[in-house]
């Protein structure tokens, strides 16, 4: 019951943030001076190849889609209403493709890189950090400086170096893209085997950096825990070190877990930029192209997705923390 209340509170909070995020997402692009549709249509016209009548149609289409002739609050409601139907609007850059369609093509690639990278990086990084803290000495120093270095390498910088060394110089893995020319995405062993070779480099670029960050955090948490009273008491009771280590790990892990929620935004961004380096056909590359074409509907959809991913990740972390940390349950009810 206590837990349900806690989760309910977190859910309400997440919804409040979501509404604010939606408003920002809606309002900020509308701050462009002048009528955005005029600007866009002007751009399409400047690109050439589109006739006057067609331009008129495009202009009409977007005016209607955005409801620009209506007051702002109505525009917002239209925006929300469309979102609820899964309708992100129509792309400026690749008119008349729908944004949902473009996103649908790109999203799976981004998830394929980021989800495994985040999980693997978190687990391995924490194990490494804990090891450094327990072993001390040169293991600690080596692991710490190494981790600190990797955690401070911008993910895309590591991606560039890996791409150059492994793919260009050594020629072990393909240089860019997500699958070989002539292949079509399908659920087959051949395709999977081919796609994996393209997957490795962006994956490792993200994982290594994340491992570094987690290891640094875990190490300082564990060093802190090592000096705590319960470790001393366990020792005085002759409890095996292997058992005490598990106590320490559990306690040091909690802030790391919360930290995962906080660092998720940086990770996602890092992952999107890595896609650019490898021309990986995910959201990052889509965003890059959209920015180049001032394709606001696509940009807006992607920023909204990033926000959603971060909010969902944080909510999940909060809920899981509630399950792991007994004090949260107690603190909520005042039960003592």
């Amino acid at each position, binding site marked *: 019951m206590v837990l349900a209340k806690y989760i309910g509170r977190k859910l309400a909070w997440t919804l409040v943030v979501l509404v604010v995020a939606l408003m920002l997402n809606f309002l900020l692009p509308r701050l462009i001076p002048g009528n955005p549709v005029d600007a866009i249509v002007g751009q399409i016209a400047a690109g050439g190849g589109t006739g006057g009548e067609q331009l008129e149609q495009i202009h009409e289409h977007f005016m209607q889609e955005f409801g620009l002739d209506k007051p702002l609050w109505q525009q917002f409601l239209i925006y929300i209403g469309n979102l609820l139907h899964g309708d992100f609007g129509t792309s400026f850059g690749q008119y008349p493709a729908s944004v949902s369609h473009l996103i649908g093509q790109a999203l799976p690639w981004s998830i394929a890189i980021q989800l495994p990278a985040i999980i693997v990086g978190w687990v391995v990084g924490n194990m490494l950090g804990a090891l450094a803290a327990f072993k001390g000495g040169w293991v600690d120093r080596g692991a710490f400086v190494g981790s600190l270095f990797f955690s401070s390498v911008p993910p895309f910088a590591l991606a560039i170096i890996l791409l150059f060394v492994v793919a260009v110089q050594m020629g072990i893995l393909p240089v860019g893209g997500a699958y070989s020319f002539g292949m079509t995405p399908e659920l087959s062993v051949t395709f999977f085997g081919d796609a994996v070779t393209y997957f490795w480099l962006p994956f490792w670029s993200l994982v290594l950096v994340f491992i570094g960050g987690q290891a640094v955090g875990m190490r300082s948490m564990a060093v802190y825990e090592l000096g705590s009273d319960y470790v001393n008491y366990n020792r005085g009771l*002759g409890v095996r070190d292997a058992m005490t280590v598990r106590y320490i790990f559990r306690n040091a892990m*909690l802030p790391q877990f919360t930290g995962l929620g906080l660092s998720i935004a940086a990770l996602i961004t890092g992952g999107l930029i890595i896609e650019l380096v490898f021309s990986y056909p995910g959201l990052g590359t889509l965003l890059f192209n959209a920015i180049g074409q001032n394709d606001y509907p696509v940009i807006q959809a992607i920023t909204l997705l990033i926000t959603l991913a971060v909010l969902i990740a944080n909510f999940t972390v909060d809920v899981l923390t509630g399950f792991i940390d007994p004090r949260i349950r107690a603190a909520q009810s005042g039960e003592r």
Partner: protein
Amino acid sequence: MGTLVDARNIRGVYYTGGKDVVAVDDVSVKIEEGEVLGLAGESGSGKTTLGSIISLIARPPLHVEQGSLEIDGKVQELGGDAKVPRTWRGAVVSMLPQGAMNSISPTKRIRHLVYDVMRSHDRKVSKDEALDRARERITTLGLPARVLDAYPHQLSGGMKQRTVTIISTLLNPRLLVADEPTSALDVSSQKILIEMLLEMLEKKIMSGVIFITHDLPVLRTVATNIAVMYEGRVVERGPTERMVDDPQHPYTQALMSSVLAPEPKYRKIRIEGMSSFDRSLFDAPAVIHR
């Protein structure tokens, strides 16, 4: 009754990089079967350091340069690189820590710790068996069995300290080293805890206690004998009554006269105080009564 513990010539030094600090300087302590030895002294006198050496948990930067511990005829070297078997801790000598507040990991239930303590010393013990034994001990000593299922934050201060006391003595250690176990408690909880300790001693759960505190009134109620430490040495030792009524060493006199107790005779004694770093005190001969 015979001698239970004989700690000889203990010297404990903190290696601080620059200057070494001698915290315990060639101290020997004997504890009889069934005795509660009160260890008194001001902060920095070395009593906590001595306690941690005897409870076998000295850790860098504290180094035991010399000393040995004899319990039941078994002699354990403490000095230098001597390895103390892990199973001595908890089973032969156990500790009751200063302030039980953080002594149990906040994310573990009491029963987790109980089981881990038991199986660290007895690989074959099953979970049920371990918990049954613990439950029996807990109810015998008048605590509700449900503390086993609690997380530390769910217990009040007094309750937690009593629970920790029971965990410390689960393995029936010969000696329990209690370091300021009562200092964080209110008076009624102090009383309950002390009664419990004495009851445990009577039941032979442990055979002797070293009770470290700067709280002299508490010491008067619990200790059989009192040893007073000053600047890393035991300056005086004797039966509690005599130590309180007729202290010999000037430092003991100063320490005892600093006590406020609602008893008529104390009204006549003037608090004299002393300069805290009077080296001449240190040169006064140690007065040890047996």
